[in-house]
């Protein structure tokens, strides 16, 4: 039997103030207090506890889970920091998990850094840290290392978070953006555009009263269920910034295939459609934080749809289109009316139309 490790006990610092100042980034006791009291206390886990400058991960355990590591990073800036359905902390954790998950990886460890604007309230940081810890715990991943910096007022907008994630891809799982073939079907796991609409609405600039919630959620369990039932999944992408329109364009270009989607089959909440109608936005380009696009071999289309629909995060899953030989690199949409139009990449950000 191996011997029991006795970890060095560390006395955690305690913050005495309500607001972060530049002193909390100075490397001294104030900084230790901030890290201990806000972040370590929330992320509490055995890999983090030794408080070394790096997390040390057991190779044997990683190797047992698969044959490749997946490694990703995500920078999260969002205004407002708290919005219906989530907050910057949940977004950082779920976004990083999802970037691993769509590669077929089992997400295991996260590293997070917070860049904090001087004057930010400690209470706000606590809430964000707790949200990160909660999201990580629910998803079964550990936040094992991190960093904080405090910058002068105006040098960042309250709080920026970056997160990196490490996962293991099980042997045999091969998902690639260049693997789409004519005849494949295109699936999404649910209602589109909710995160983008929720953020725009939460900013309050449009003075529209609505209760759209972000779809922010970790997708790795859904992906695991999908891959278990439908081995013909060729490619997965999470449809974040730029929406499914952008992801489909990326896949069409990487695979040199055409993609045709059917507007009537694109699932959308009534409120999101209305929101987009009023502002003149195209929901296909709105960000999602809990939605993926799956390209699946035709023989596994039904199995994939059933697997997605059996999971709570895929209850509204649909087949929205198919991969074609026509116009490689292009995404075409069959409109509600029965006509066609190109769904191109956006030039810049979407802007509300004048009238």
């Amino acid at each position, binding site marked *: 039997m191996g011997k029991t490790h006795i970890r060095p006990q560390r006395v955690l610092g305690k913050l005495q103030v309500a607001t972060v100042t530049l002193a909390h980034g100075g490397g001294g006791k104030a900084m230790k207090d901030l890290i201990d009291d806000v972040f370590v206390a929330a992320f509490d886990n055995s890999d983090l506890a030794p408080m070394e400058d790096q997390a040390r991960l057991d190779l044997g355990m990683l190797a047992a889970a698969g044959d490749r590591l997946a490694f990703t990073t995500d920078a999260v800036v969002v205004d407002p920091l708290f919005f219906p359905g989530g907050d910057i902390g949940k977004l950082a954790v779920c976004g990083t998990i999802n970037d691993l998950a769509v590669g077929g990886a089992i997400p295991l460890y996260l590293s997070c850094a917070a860049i904090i604007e001087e004057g930010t309230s400690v209470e706000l940081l606590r809430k964000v840290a707790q949200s990160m810890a909660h999201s990580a715990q629910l998803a079964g991943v550990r936040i094992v290392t991190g960093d904080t910096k405090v910058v002068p007022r105006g040098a960042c907008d309250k709080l920026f978070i970056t997160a990196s994630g490490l996962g293991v891809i099980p042997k045999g799982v091969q998902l690639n953006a260049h693997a789409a073939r004519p005849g494949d079907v295109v699936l999404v796991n649910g209602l589109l555009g909710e995160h983008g609409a929720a953020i725009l609405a939460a900013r309050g*600039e449009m003075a529209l009263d609505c209760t759209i919630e972000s779809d922010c959620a970790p997708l790795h369990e859904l992906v695991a269920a999908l891959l278990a039932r439908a081995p013909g999944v060729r490619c997965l992408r999470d449809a974040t910034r730029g929406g499914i329109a952008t992801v489909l364009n990326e896949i069409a270009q990487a695979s040199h295939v055409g993609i045709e989607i059917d507007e009537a089959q694109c699932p959308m909440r009534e409120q999101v459609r209305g929101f987009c109608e009023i502002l003149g936005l195209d929901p296909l380009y709105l960000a999602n934080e809990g939605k993926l696009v799956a390209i699946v071999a035709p023989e596994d289309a039904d199995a994939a749809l059933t697997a997605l629909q059996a999971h709570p995060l895929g209850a509204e899953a649909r087949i929205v289109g198919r991969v074609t030989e026509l116009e490689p690199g292009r995404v075409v949409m069959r409109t509600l009316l029965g006509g066609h139009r190109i769904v191109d990449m956006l*030039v810049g950000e979407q802007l509300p139309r004048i009238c």
Partner: protein
Amino acid sequence: MKYVDEFRDRDKAAALATEIEKLACSIEGGSTPIHIMEVCGGHTHSIFRYGVEELLPARIELIHGPGCPVCVLPMGRVDDCVAIAEQPNVIFTTFGDAMRVPGSRKSLMQARAEGADVRMVYSPMDALALARAHPDREVVFFGLGFETTMPATALTILQADREAIDNFTVFCNHITIIPTIKAILDSPDVRIDAFLGPGHVSMVIGSAPYDFIARHYRRPLVIAGFEPLDVLQSIWMVLKQIKEGRCEIENQYARVAAAGGNVAALQAIARVYELRPFFEWRGLGSIDHSGVRLRPEYARFDAERRYAIPNARIADPKACQCGEVLKGVLKPWQCKVFGTSCTPQTPAGALMVSSEGACAAYYQYSSAKQRTGARG
């Protein structure tokens, strides 16, 4: 969505398309094209977004008109906006899609990146609210658009007047569509057989201002709604007039646009604005009486009087053929610079600027096959 989905019904669209085909075949002239101009950028957007052209017989050619206020904004006016926005202490407010319109030096978006306080608003009232909230700052609203947006700006000025708010001004670039339709009809190379009239402009001005188009120029016009079935039905109504040899102003959009227009909106317009002797349009040049400015009674809300603005006339790039496209002489892809030096990323001409511009819509929504096929 109620009152929206009904107007996007695939089966009804197919049925209408069949009727349009029958009617188009029965109009004499064999296969000579019938040119119909949709005046409004909202129609252009809808036609491309829903793929309406695909449902139309080859004989019908849609000409995408000048009714996109963002597109026809001359470069010099954008430069003026930037100059105002770069004044110290100014908060410059604008509708979203004007942010990206290129000036001769930069767009408002670039000015914002360089430090100007440029904010996107959805209504002029939001700009007035900003002025109330920041009494120590100067808030300027970029008044842009046809009669559709003109009343909202007028009512905001009247409200500012009532509240005696003195840190709010409007940079008035509102334009009026009628003189421009007339200018297009007067040009010698025009190829337009009939019009789809702008639904939301008509909601404000009613149908009487179009009478001269039928009476003097002998062209039918149907005031049209913006949903795809509205557009199809309006095309059918136009064809019916052509077939029966009528030239009338008809209203397909009666559910929104009343024949007499909106009296309160018209009163606000009359109270606040007066016609300018002329106004510059990108792609079309200077057109008499096609723009409005604030009346002297409201001079203190007039940004043109409060700020020293360059007011320079910047010529459109020589290679641009926006004018020909607007008159229906050229299709967007027949322009020399379409898709090469003029793209949505680097718009050289007016019609590539906003998603409602004909060239941007073609570039964005129609397939490469269609473009090259049509060009060849």
